[in-house]
């Protein structure tokens, strides 16, 4: 009976989309002398799914785009224009958004994504549609290795790289009995896998005596802490983050889990994760992160000053990633002399550019950037959490040998 209503509604819906006016870009490009109009970059990220990380990231790329356009834009006086979309943390939404950006907005390049599975979905889309994609934040090793493709490049240091940085520090500890706690999905699993392998390589005498795999976002803090303590490890490797980390730290402190035990913890030094812990942040944990307020290199100072002037706050890890991603895109287009996808892809291979962390290069071998991270210890000073005794760990020093990478990456 109501087939007809169905069809009518479908028809109406279709009409609505067909008539859909083009959406104004989030960042309006200033009217530069346009040679063939602005360069359009489609940007997709989990703005509603993970705002705490993605909003600083957005401010970062906004700053980069403003700087690029204020300096006269790209070759030929073309402005850089970004059309941004939310993927709500879902890969299928991200692929749809990518389709829209490509078909309706005619973007020349894709960028962004936070979650690993979303990044992989967009990477696959990019390969199929032969459009360059600069994955900003996904950490999964697969995006540049096992599932790498010719059109996808990744900026942030991968799970492997961060685990390798920590394994190096962990090997210096006297501890031989280790326990691990990690969220039960690919990120947590591969972090633990690499950490174990790399630590064993340096220290054949260590053993892993307990492991906990809480569901992401659903850590049962009390029982988990108790179970770890029961195995009486000498040191703990932690991969939980966000709300789980806060619960873990609180219960762990109250139940004495961290007393006389070393803790090595992935990403915990990043301001996004460290700052919410306030004066309850753990002290003396060995972490990877970003001590924004303490880095005093000229390139970082320039970036941090501009960022603070523009947004009135210190940059976070995501800000650096967003900023550098779009600087890299601009550099690639300049190097390629245009927006031809093959030329831009070729330009991204081996692209060298300055970043707030110092010079980096997108390796031609696996499209992984050599951006590193800071390794140090956590501390609380004047009621504020921060990193101390830190050093910069350059990304290129924490990647496997080229042959091993080639073996993992599909043949192009």
């Amino acid at each position, binding site marked *: 009976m109501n087939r007809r209503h169905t*069809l009518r*509604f479908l028809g109406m819906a279709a009409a609505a989309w067909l008539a859909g006016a083009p*959406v104004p870009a989030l960042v309006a490009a200033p009217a530069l002398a346009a040679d063939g109009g602005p360069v359009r970059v489609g940007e997709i990220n989990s703005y509603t799914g993970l705002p705490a990380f993605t909003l600083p990231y957005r401010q970062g790329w906004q700053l980069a785009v403003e700087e690029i356009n204020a300096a006269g834009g790209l070759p030929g006086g073309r402005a850089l224009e970004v059309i941004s979309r939310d993927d709500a943390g879902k890969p299928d939404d991200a692929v749809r958004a990518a389709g829209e950006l490509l078909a309706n907005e005619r973007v020349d390049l894709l960028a962004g994504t936070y979650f690993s*599975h979303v990044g992989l*979905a967009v990477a696959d889309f990019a390969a199929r549609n032969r459009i360059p994609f600069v994955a900003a934040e996904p950490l999964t090793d697969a995006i540049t290795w096992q599932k790498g493709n010719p059109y996808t490049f990744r900026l942030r240091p991968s799970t492997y790289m961060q685990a390798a940085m920590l394994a190096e520090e962990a090997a210096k500890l006297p501890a031989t009995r280790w326990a691990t706690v990690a969220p039960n999905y690919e990120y947590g699993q591969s972090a633990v896998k690499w950490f174990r392998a790399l630590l064993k390589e340096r220290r054949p005498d260590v053993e892993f005596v307990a492991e906990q795999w809480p569901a992401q976002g659903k850590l049962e803090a*009390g*029982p988990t802490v108790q179970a770890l303590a029961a195995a009486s490890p000498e040191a703990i490797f932690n991969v939980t983050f966000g709300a789980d980390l806060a619960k873990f730290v609180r219960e762990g402190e109250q139940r004495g889990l961290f007393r006389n035990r070393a803790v090595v913890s992935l990403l915990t030094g990043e301001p996004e994760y460290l700052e919410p812990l306030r004066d309850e942040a753990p002290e003396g944990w060995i972490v990877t992160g970003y001590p924004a307020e303490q880095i005093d290199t000229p390139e970082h100072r320039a970036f941090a000053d501009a960022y603070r002037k523009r947004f009135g706050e210190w940059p976070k890890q995501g800000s650096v990633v967003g900023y550098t991603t779009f600087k890299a895109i601009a550099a690639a287009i300049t190097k390629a002399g245009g927006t031809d996808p093959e030329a831009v892809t070729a330009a991204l291979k081996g692209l060298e550019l300055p970043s707030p962390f110092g010079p980096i290069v997108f390796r031609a071998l696996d499209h992984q950037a050599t951006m590193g991270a800071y390794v140090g210890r956590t501390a609380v000073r004047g009621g504020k959490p921060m990193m101390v005794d830190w050093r910069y760990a350059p990304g290129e020093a924490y990647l496997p040998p080229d042959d091993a990478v080639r073996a993992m990456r599909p043949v192009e």
Partner: protein
Amino acid sequence: MDFYFVQFLSGLATAATLFLVSSGLTVIFGVTRIVNFAHGSFYMLGAYVAWSLVERWGDTPPGFWGGVLLAAVTVGVLGAVMEVVLLRRLYRSPELFQLLATFGVVLIVQDAASWLWGPEDLLGRRAPLLRGSVEVLGQPFPLYDLMLIVLGPLVLVALLLLFHRTRWGTLVRAATRDREMTAALGVDQAKLFTSVLFLGSALAGLGGALQVPREAVNLHMDMAMVVEAFVVVVVGGMGSLPGAFVASLLIGQLQAFGILVFPQITLVLVFLFMAVVLVLRPYGLFGRPEEGPPAGEAPGPPLRPDGPRAATVSLVLLAALAAVPLVAGDYALIVLTEVVILALLASSLHLLTGLGGLVSFGHAAWFGLGAYGAALLVRDAGAPMLPALAAAPLVAGLGALVAGWFCVRRSGLYFAMLTLAFAQIVWSVTFQWYAVTGGDNGILGVWPADWASSKAVYYELTLLLAGGTLWLLRRAAFAPFGYALRAGRDSALRAEAVGIDVRHRQWMAFTLAGACAGLAGGLYAFAHGSVFPTLMAVPVSVDALVMVLLGGLRTLAGPAAGAALFHGLETEAMRLTDYWRLVLGLVIVVLVLAFPQGVVGFARSLWDRRRGGNGSAAEPVA
């Protein structure tokens, strides 16, 4: 031994929070029969409000506890407001419609909380005087957790006293037993419902407020809690306070000891437990059979078959849809392809919910199984697109056949939660079985065959397959099978009496619905080129249900229209604003209030009114 005792205590502390929240849910459900998705949102609001108050005044014990109580009361008031402004207007609609309204509230609260409190996790103060820990059998144990362990039973006793020693409590219990009779005796239902919503929401708010010293308040607390609270309520038996208490204790211990024995499957342990309980005990541990669970649909005017004119119009419109690629761009076709696929998904759910009266919370499982079936064939067997698409409904149908056998033995919310349990089991297997499914990183490279790689061709293919299946579903609705299914929905007893094997029909409907959802899943996989466990996660099941309800349960076209409306709204709002959840939530609430029979149901009654008939017009209408 000492260690196990402390682990047991930790389990008790978890159970206390769980009990506070689920007791509120079970009281609300017992009296109003509302499946209140917004309960988790009230829990989250309780935590946020308490965080703000405790930040300000939480240094002293009176300040802290005053803040916690004030937060609970505030949230209770919000719950009462939701009842007065929204739910009260819906008591005459099908019961499930209130579910849709509360889903709208969930979306609104998510964005409102993000706007008011910001996106970052908020770590609140710890309770004064309860910051440290005590030694229990040589193991340090947080004082605050000890307090929670004591508080749980105290709240239970207080609630039992309230329900057994006050006039109001007696009325609530009476309404839980028999709502109509209570009303007939002159009890003001509206006031009773408002006060129950107040109490239930305040309990959720209290549960949330008490979490402030334990964890960082964050924007994902609502969904994390609401599903678990439903599990507790169903395991305990709906409407039963002691049931909720016992179930909370069991689940708290399950989690405490489960991580020792199976640290890898914490994801699914709770759902496995619920499935086992429901298979063994039809009404949970303490539920009573006479508590009529919500039917998917109250007996309404029967479905009417098409006349010849309607068939012509259908064909013309189908032709028009098929002609869209002549004028539309690629993106319009991408979205339209998704709309057609989701229309199939929603219609398959409607077969269960609208015709069978069975509400499924786990329909995404079959959608996802179909998608994975197709994707695995492509990846591992190198199958071409069409055979992979053909396999999708078979894989999903097979899964539904097995799960259905268990599920149709239960009814109402017990059925719904059992489908949810199966969906979660399927989801977690997919999520964790890396070797085969690729885990959360999914399966990539599931693109259409070369001949179908253009958006237009794939759209036409989708239209053909989904349209054909929709037509078959229609036929099924008017075949003896469909009549028998509807008979079982409207009166299972009478249907059995005339010789219909109701359970068997429902089982077959479950399988058919699963197979159709599987086909939709297969089509969806090729449309996106990749599959991920998110395809079978809870939000997809909820979305499917929302589409069905938005369109209306009483018409066959409703689900398809609901799918178009919901998906169109969502994609457009997401494209245009960061506050798309707020927009979507508000639109749903407005639609629910304006069209309590669903959009198509409304169109239908308008049509009937214009023709001066009441649905029995001589000439059948479309």
